[in-house]
């Protein structure tokens, strides 16, 4: 069986709306966040997971990390069902949510890291080695004694990545890691992810709206829309398939957002 195995995954949420005048009960609406999604990912792959806002990407990541329990379907990650043994499962994975922070706001990075070391029970020697390796790759050396709140967004994202990789997870979920970053930081981040994937064999599932992230990093893309999987395969094929003008090459990055937009349109999103 593949490293990540997702079969017929369904999840819906009930959204209660404001009661209208003259109506006794509040109206309820069921939002189908995921409808019958299936896919498999092999160990060591770097997969891009894209789709318009509200497509169900984050819901998938949350189910894969054991935070949410799906309505139906089978999920196995490294042979484990994420939500059944959450504690055991999460010690093997790392997560970065681009819009939130996992480190402690007022304390120096080093203190946050040493707390994470204790939480994940990483042996001292292994921790030292890994920390050295990560601080070098992420150029964090000068920042280790700085409190998180004094870091810029780009520095913070690098610090977050370091925090989520300290325990050498087999699998890393990245939820919009390049959001709000400048060109230099983005490039540095991509280099690092490529390195981590190639050197350490970490499986990476990347959620993003930045198509250049996908072009730069992923050979395989999954497209999600309205809770269903619409495409799964190579990036080049995806682009030629949905390129309305038939002229755009993947190398010409300027137009990639337009291609994706036309693809979403063609798929009826």
């Amino acid at each position, binding site marked *: 069986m593949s490293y990540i195995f997702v079969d017929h995954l369904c999840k819906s949420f009930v959204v209660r709306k404001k009661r209208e005048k003259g109506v006794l009960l509040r109206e309820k609406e069921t939002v189908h966040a995921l409808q019958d999604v299936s896919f498999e990912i092999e160990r060591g792959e770097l997969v891009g997971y894209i789709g318009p806002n509200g497509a169900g990407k984050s819901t998938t990541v*949350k189910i894969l*990390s054991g935070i949410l329990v799906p309505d139906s379907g089978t999920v196995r990650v490294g042979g484990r069902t994420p939500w059944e043994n959450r*504690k055991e499962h*999460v*010690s093997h994975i790392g997560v970065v*949510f681009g819009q*939130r922070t*996992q480190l402690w706001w007022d304390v120096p990075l080093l203190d946050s890291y040493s707390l994470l070391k204790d*939480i*994940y029970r990483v042996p001292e020697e292994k921790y030292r080695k890994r920390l050295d390796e990560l601080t070098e790759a992420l150029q964090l050396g000068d920042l280790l004694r700085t409190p998180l709140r004094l870091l810029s967004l780009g520095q913070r994202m690098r610090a977050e990545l370091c925090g989520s990789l300290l325990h050498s997870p087999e699998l890393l979920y990245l939820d919009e890691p390049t959001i709000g970053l400048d060109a230099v930081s983005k490039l540095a981040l991509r280099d690092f992810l490529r390195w981590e994937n190639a050197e350490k064999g970490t499986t990476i599932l990347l959620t993003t709206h930045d198509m250049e992230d996908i072009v730069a990093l992923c050979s395989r893309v999954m497209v999600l829309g309205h809770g269903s999987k619409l495409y799964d395969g190579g990036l080049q094929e995806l682009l030629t398939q949905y390129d309305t003008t038939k002229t755009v090459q993947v190398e010409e990055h300027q137009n990639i957002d337009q291609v994706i937009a036309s693809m979403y349109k063609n798929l009826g999103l």
Partner: protein
Amino acid sequence: METQYRGAVLGGLICQTFFGLVLVAIYRAMYAGKPQDMPLSNITTYVWLQQAFFRMLLSTDTDLLDRIRTGAIAYDLCRPLHLYGYYYSRVLAMKMTGSILRALPMLVIAALLPAGWGMCLPASVPALLAALAALILGMFCICALENVTMGLTMRTLDPRGVQALLNLLLMTFSGNILPLTLFPDSWQRAITLLPYAQMLDAPIRLYTGEYALGQAPAVMIIQLCWTVLLVAGGCLLWRANQKKMIVQGG
């Protein structure tokens, strides 16, 4: 940052000294009008000990509730941690540092005040030791209670309403507003059994000798029972909440 911590300690100290003086003045006035059965020195000691350990009572950790509201709780759930245990130790650490930093200088101030205004010495050395043991048990008890409160408030996204109500109960029945020793006897019989009374009221009574040394084991058994009960209840509540938790947005 350090300035901020020092400022907080100093500000708290001044505030608690002021409150303590006002309360003692009120009780002195009350005793001047109509003396109660309880000796005044017991009441002033009660007031000062309450003020010294004020930080133990008040819940100041809004972090978890913020994390739930903003969805940052997702990160906590991505850790190989027992969520209840993690937050219990957090609360315990905050209460301990908060009260130790404040209690020691407060006790010195209270001891320096003139007789009739300040604090008296413990009934005996064994009474002091019993009070200390009861204080530690009380600390475990209040942390467990706070986690139950948190478990209840977790269910609403904006917890201020529920929390205000629960804090009123806490302040009243822990003896912070009015020493429990001044409640009518029939009330006291019930109130002293509540978990609120286990936190500070019981250790203070052991200190002043109002609970004789022989009563100490019984007091501690009640404290222990509440702690076990509240921890168990809290764990169940948190587990149920965790199943229902839906992490918003992002």
